[in-house]
């Protein structure tokens, strides 16, 4: 039981309608390969958490939906019988137990023998660098320490699948970056199938083998981080991931990222405009312009160039930097 191997996940026509009639998820198919880290990304209310909870077994899909772990149909198995590991946004550590007892809980429930349990818990604590905290109470831990305990607890019983629900949202920026790197290393070394929910695109890019961008209960696009950034399927994806500019040029609309554009002397480039604001960010500068056609454009330039609001400037776009929307839902740009 404790040596379960990791598994693929297949979801077929899973929809979710809540008791009050809200449709959280439109019928949806998705397959996740064994060992893959799949990130569900989207704004709040897009259905990503509902989808995760259906995979976990905390919500049942509407009639007709099916969830398979490998070959096994787990649609009607409650979460406690699915052998998953789950990490919650609020950590959900048990306040009446020590760190050690929290990590051991899943093993106790599985009636693992004492010696093996001790060894496994110590291994987990060491892996997450929290061995010194074993006897602490939960309320004596910092946010980052709690997150490590939550991870150790979730993987201690060697689950088939690891599910993470916005695990870093409650932490401050610096700690978030560090833990993000650690989680990435952990997932790679475990080789476990992982589903990771977030609304933070940087997190999604770093961690995801593939990213599922969701919107209004539907999948907007599935792809590698690179695909999604450079070849967004539609306007929603293009706008949700990174910043996009739109510029009308000779009867066509050009779509491009700020870092693929440059400021050139007036009269050159594809468009002309006046610099409104310059934000100095240290490693680069973000320049906001109004074009003569009344469009707003953002261009990123090196941090040593000197530009000032009020200046006229041309805007050039590198040809390879054009974003081609694979769908045709461009009209929503306004």
């Amino acid at each position, binding site marked *: 039981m404790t040596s379960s191997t990791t598994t693929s996940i297949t979801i077929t026509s899973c929809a979710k309608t809540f008791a009050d009639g809200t449709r959280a998820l439109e019928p949806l198919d998705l397959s996740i390969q064994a060992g893959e880290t799949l990130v569900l990304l989207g704004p709040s209310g897009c259905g990503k958490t509902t989808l995760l909870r259906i995979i976990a077994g905390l919500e049942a899909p509407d009639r007709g939906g099916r969830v398979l772990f490998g070959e096994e149909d787990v649609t009607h198995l409650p979460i406690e019988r699915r052998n998953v590991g*789950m990490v919650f946004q609020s950590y959900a550590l*048990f306040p009446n137990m020590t760190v050690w007892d929290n990590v051991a809980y899943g093993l106790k429930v599985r009636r693992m023998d004492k010696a093996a349990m001790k060894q496994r818990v110590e291994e987990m604590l060491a892996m997450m660098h929290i061995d010194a905290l074993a006897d602490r109470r939960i309320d004596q831990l910092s946010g980052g320490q709690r997150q490590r305990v939550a991870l150790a607890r979730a993987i201690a019983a060697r689950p088939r699948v690891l599910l993470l629900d916005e695990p870093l949202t409650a932490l401050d920026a610096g700690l978030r970056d560090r833990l993000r790197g650690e989680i990435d290393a952990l997932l790679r070394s475990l080789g476990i199938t992982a589903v990771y929910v977030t609304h933070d695109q940087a997190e999604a890019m770093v961690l995801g083998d593939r990213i599922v961008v969701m919107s209004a209960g539907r999948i907007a696009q599935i792809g590698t981080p690179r695909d999604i950034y450079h070849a967004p399927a539609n306007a929603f994806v293009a706008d949700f991931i990174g910043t996009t500019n739109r510029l009308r040029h000779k009867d066509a609309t050009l779509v491009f990222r700020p870092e693929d554009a440059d400021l050139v002397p007036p009269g050159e480039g594809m468009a002309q405009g006046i610099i409104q604001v310059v934000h100095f960010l240290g490693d680069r500068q973000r320049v906001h312009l109004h074009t003569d056609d009344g469009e707003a454009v953002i261009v990123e330039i090196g941090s040593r160039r000197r530009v000032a609001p009020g200046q006229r400037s041309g805007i050039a776009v590198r040809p390879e930097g054009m974003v081609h929307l694979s769908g045709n839902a461009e009209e929503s740009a306004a």
Partner: protein
Amino acid sequence: MPSPYPRLFILLLPVMILFGAFFLIPMVQLALAGASGPQGLAAYASILTTPRHTQSMIATLLLAVSVTATALIVSTIAGLFLARHRFPGRSVLLALLTFPLAFPGVVVGFLIILLAGRQGVVGDVSRMLTGEKLVFAYSLAGLFVGYLYFSIPRVILTIMAAAEKLDGALLEAARSLGASTWQVTRDIILPALRPGLIASGAICFATAMGAFGTAFALATNIDVLPMTIYTEFTLNANVAGAASLSLVLGLVTWIALFIARSLSGATTAAAA
């Protein structure tokens, strides 16, 4: 440093005068009266030395403990159920369960007579079923049922308040680790309810120790401590005995509440 609120003390004055004159001084008088009898200070030991008083104390303690235990078990089951499920009719059920909250003990006594007295419905039903008429209102069992009657609503409310504060993610986390419904209840829910259980258990115990109205309405010779005190005072005109016994009783209930408060870490406002 000059206080920006010089009048604060004056605002407290009315309460302090009232409590001084009508509570603190009388309690001291009560303590003195307890020692004023022929036995002197030894009156305070009468709870141990007078067999009638000892018996009364033991009976009251046993009654209070068993009522507390039963009320906690019954109310935890019902309270958890109501806190964790939403279904049609739930709010009506909840209103009915908390309705007896405001009944004085004497009314509860009367209700128990209607339930299990000489003309009680329990007697009618048992006669139909077994031919024997079951009447227990006027015994210790009647008192037990009566105390249970006014304890259950209060404990249910405490349990529900505690259960609604419980973080749902904790239960989901336990389940994700493989815990069954029973294991979740044992390992997560009950530990989270502990402070509420201790606090309401202590109130339950203290109320059952000091309640007088129910026993009075059942009008029996059940020798619970409040009845003994009442008898000593009114029938035997034994002022010293009544005073010493009621001080001992007051001390027991206060200690119970005090211990509960330090165990559950709750503020004064949560206990008593």
